[in-house]
């Protein structure tokens, strides 16, 4: 499969790319900060309960929404760092032209799937707005807000996948096995 040859970015593109990178730098901090806050809030709740006060009202629900939110806030910055878990069996075995072709294919598939997730979030959002669905727990709010979070996160994620696809496949530092994360 022919791999499209890269084009040098114009000055304007470079500036936009830099601003976008700073934006992702900021987003990258959010999941960690939220996790730190969750730890403190749970600690405070345990303390309050053990000294005779009632726990923090609605805490569990807020933490649940934070877990959901931080995931979709963080997926694009994690993609930029190549942190998403992947199985590199084939890529590790390949070299040269074959490796670049497979890498390009992998990135093209990633763009397509990411875009489809964004589309599905859009369909869900449109449905939720049309039907006026509400989420009923301790907090009551329109369901479309949840879909909007997924949509925003996956749109940024799709952009990041596109940027990776556009990256020059000839760059020797590019296309190394991604940083594999395990727990």
């Amino acid at each position, binding site marked *: 499969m022919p791999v499209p040859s890269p084009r040098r970015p114009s000055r304007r593109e470079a500036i936009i790319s830099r601003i976008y990178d700073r934006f992702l730098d900021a987003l990258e901090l*959010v999941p960690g900060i939220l996790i730190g806050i969750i*730890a403190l809030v749970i*600690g405070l709740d345990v303390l309050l309960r053990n000294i005779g006060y009632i726990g923090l009202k609605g805490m569990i629900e807020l933490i*649940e929404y934070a877990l959901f939110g*931080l*995931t979709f806030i963080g997926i694009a910055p994690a993609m930029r760092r190549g942190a998403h878990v992947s199985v590199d069996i084939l890529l590790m075995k390949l070299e040269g032209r074959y490796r670049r072709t497979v890498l390009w294919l992998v990135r093209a598939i990633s763009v397509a*799937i990411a875009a489809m997730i964004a589309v*599905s979030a859009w369909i869900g959002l449109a449905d939720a707005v049309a039907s006026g669905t509400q989420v009923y727990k301790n907090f009551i709010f329109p369901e479309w807000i949840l879909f909007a979070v997924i949509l925003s996160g996956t749109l940024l994620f799709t952009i990041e996948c596109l940027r990776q696809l556009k990256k020059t496949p000839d760059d020797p530092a590019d296309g190394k096995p991604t940083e594999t*994360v395990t*727990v």
Partner: protein
Amino acid sequence: MDWQIAFLLLMGTVLAPMFLGVPVALAFFGANIVGAVVFFGGEAGLAQMARNAYEGLINFSLSPIPMFVLMGEIMFQTGVAFRAIDAIDRLITRVPGRLSLVAVSCGTVFSALSGSSMANTALLGGTLMPEMTRRGYHPGMALGPILGSGGLAMLIPPSSMAVLLGSMSGISITGILLGGILPALLIAAFYVVYIVLRCTIDPSLAPAYPTPKMRWSERVMPFLVYVLPLMSLFVVVVGSILTGIATPTESAALGAIGATVAAACYRCLTWRSLHKALVQTGKITVTIFFIIAASLTFSQILAFSGATGGILSLLNQFDLTPLVVVVGMLVIVLALGCLMDPLSIILITLPFFIPLVRQVGIEPVWFGVLMLVALEVGQTTPPFGLLLFTMKSVAPESTTMRQVYLAAAPFTLMQILAIALIVFFPALGTWLPSLSN
């Protein structure tokens, strides 16, 4: 559509892109998209996939995962863990295979402070390997103990993988967390016996060398100062769950706060290290949770397409005993472990395994513990065990992949021996959880 074709279609759409190198989360979402279109009726199915993505994540039982990751990251990024290695190193003297035993001891201690086996292996490898190489240790006695004990982090609380397995399977998280402790200690004991025996029989594997002369207090004090207080974090996490003072989530948060306070007490906590720990924790959490976001739809589609039911009814025809079923499932996990990361294995197998466990009447916590140990084994089995590559990346440049494979082999066998013991003596995995009841 026949369940066989549905099964092949869904598995094919997950596995083909996954082995091509597409991120695991996207491979699952890709299969979900195909499944939503084919089985859930197009647009409505896609909307349901997005709905499932948030329903899967709005789940409080997932919150210990980032807390446990944060706990380990604080230990590593602040450098507290390195001081602990030095303290344990001073304590162990005049034994065959001294540095190998230091690796096993440190690996076990760090497993009680961090939920990441990769971080554990990288830390031990980066710190101990240069010294082992300098002292002329045989690769099998240098790489093997680090590989083996690095993986213990998956079994000993705070284990993020135990929480994940529990929250995705519906098995008691407390049960799996506590159930992993005895098997981990058993495996560590196997390692110690093996190292001492082999180095006694063949001292050239780990040449003895004079350790610096120190007063008794110089040997013991660092342990009392840098290791014992850290172990209190483990006591906080496990003790609060065992006594019922706190849930796993609360104990995880207390562990993360405790780790931060401990680092501050050692004057190791800086804004820079805290920033790095938080960012790294966020990154790891996001990658795990993004995969989880895809998992609910995947298991729903498998069930809706008839694939899950088809597999179950097929197995029913053979009238299998629970023991055969458990062994069969473990063999599948071990085989997949040669090719995949633990998270992907959990996601692919649980939709089939859990209904099977319920149907055959297998004790869920026992099964959870066995699965956890099998997943640990998978990290060190060739050709693609994750820890093998982690080890290669921190080992001296002259280390070959073949040496890493060979070094891991005896330690992998000891883990498999532990699995066999847990199969035949289930109390090894279920006794501690039974105390919490």
